[in-house]
């Protein structure tokens, strides 16, 4: 069923009785040509592009819980393509372009809102670094503007410009960045994949791989054995656990990241704003809640909740940046498990096992990458070649030394 204004009008006349479930509740078949493990944003996007762009059939997405129950439904919904390095930036810019056409492609309202993202700088050195980053972005076809203090003041007069310790000197603005309704991304991709014949199988945990002579033959699931020769794994925070079932160890640690939402307020924050002196970022949802977050907790964790020290740190960052938010009441907070890689950048690659492909290591920034990650992963699965925007996102870069370390922090996931 296509969504349109006319359809909405018609349903209004018919007492909204004609709406159907957005995807089928498929039961697993005995075998598939392609099996995607993980029904998060990345897995669902992969299935969509595999079916729609690469014209493949007999595809299943296996999800241990329900669609949208993972990080795709837990993140703070920011999209941007403001990376520095050539290994990363083309993919994120490709992703932003896909976001711009996503709703037409999916015929689904994902509330893509290009309200802009502003990274504040607090020193001359930081301004230089932002200038360099902005130029790198422009070289990769993205947009970037360096703002001086007055221009920032015009956009966000409520910031604490004269903060004694961290005065605001300007910022790097990407106008095409913004936010997207995260659940709608999962639902929109699921609906489109389903309409292209993909089986979306929920409550179906993968519990093992069948591997013969170094090649994939199928997988064990909570709902029985499924035969297949190509498996794409996109399970975010569970990457190490799932790939361990194939005997692989990954350059990944799992860490918890927290997020916070205030009570609903009148429109206040114009776009996404990030503090450059501590780790704090904020935007305002369409319902009015201030959505904000900061650093990961900093130690291995599979508990989908964080601890108090980071809560304090995030709130202190917020108070230093915009003291007015001290008056708002906190409504909710939660945590999600992040696949933190050893250089802070993701992997979309084959593995040493024939027919087993891996997509992960997205750290705290994989939501914005959802469309491009799915596209590139579908390309890899369909053609056995890396997509042109993902040629450096290799699993063996840790062996060859071709790391993509945006921060230059080294093999220390809690510093990325």
């Amino acid at each position, binding site marked *: 069923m296509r969504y349109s204004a006319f359809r909405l009008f018609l349903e209004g006349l018919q007492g909204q009785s004609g709406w159907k479930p957005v995807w089928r509740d498929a039961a697993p078949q005995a075998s598939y040509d392609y099996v995607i493990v993980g029904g998060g944003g990345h897995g669902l996007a992969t299935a969509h592009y595999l079916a729609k762009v690469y014209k493949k059939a007999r595809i299943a997405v296996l999800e241990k819980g329900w669609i949208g129950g993972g990080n795709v439904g837990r993140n703070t919904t920011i999209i941007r393509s403001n990376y520095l390095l050539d290994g990363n930036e083309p993919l994120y810019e490709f992703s932003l372009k896909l976001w711009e056409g996503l709703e037409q492609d999916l015929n689904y309202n994902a509330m893509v809102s290009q309200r802009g993202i502003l990274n504040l700088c607090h020193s001359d050195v930081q301004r230089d670094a932002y200038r360099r980053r902005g130029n790198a972005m422009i070289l990769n076809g993205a947009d970037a503007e360096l703002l001086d203090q007055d221009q920032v003041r015009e956009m966000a007069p409520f910031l604490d410009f004269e903060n004694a310790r961290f005065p605001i000197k300007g910022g790097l603005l990407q106008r095409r960045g913004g936010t997207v309704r995260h659940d709608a991304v999962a639902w929109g991709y699921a609906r489109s994949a389903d309409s292209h014949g993909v089986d979306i199988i929920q409550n179906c945990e993968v519990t093992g791989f069948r591997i013969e002579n170094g090649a994939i033959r199928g997988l064990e699931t909570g709902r029985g054995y499924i035969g297949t020769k190509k498996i794409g794994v996109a399970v975010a925070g569970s990457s*190490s*656990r799932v790939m*361990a079932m194939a005997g692989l*160890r*990954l*350059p*990944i*640690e*799992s860490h918890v990241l927290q997020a916070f939402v205030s009570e609903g307020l009148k429109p206040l924050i114009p776009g996404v704003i990030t503090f450059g002196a501590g780790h704090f970022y904020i935007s305002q949802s369409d319902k009015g809640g201030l959505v904000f977050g900061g650093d990961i907790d*900093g*130690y*291995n*964790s*599979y*508990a989908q909740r964080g*601890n108090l*020290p980071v809560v304090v740190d995030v709130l202190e960052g917020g108070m230093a940046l915009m003291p007015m938010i001290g008056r708002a009441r906190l409504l909710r907070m939660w945590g999600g498990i992040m696949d933190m890689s*050893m250089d802070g950048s993701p992997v979309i690659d084959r593995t040493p096992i024939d027919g087993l492909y891996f997509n992960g290591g997205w750290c705290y920034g994989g939501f914005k990458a959802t469309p491009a990650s799915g596209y590139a992963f579908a390309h890899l699965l369909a053609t056995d070649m890396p997509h042109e925007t993902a040629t450096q996102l290799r699993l063996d870069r*840790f*062996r060859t030394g071709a790391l993509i370390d945006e921060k230059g922090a080294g*093999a*220390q*996931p*809690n510093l990325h």
Partner: protein
Amino acid sequence: MIINHPLLGPRDSQEFVYLGDASLIDRPNAMAETALDDFHDYLYLRDNPAGSHKELWFHEQGDRSWLVVTRDVTTHEITDVELASDYAKRRGRDR
């Protein structure tokens, strides 16, 4: 989280800096034939288990000792803490 320091008693985890998996104590032999592979695995690959995890914490704002903490990473419950030097000696290192 409270870390029960073997010398100083219960301390707030905020006083510590986290390094990671305690397997970092088992530094490979640089002279071995397989050193290239061994160091790749040592530096970059992790078991990253969802359960009991032995990990290195540094008491930076305390007595500056390294500890090996055994923690369930699904609940944050700490079941054992010992000095990293004791742990390392038990594993055949001289310090």
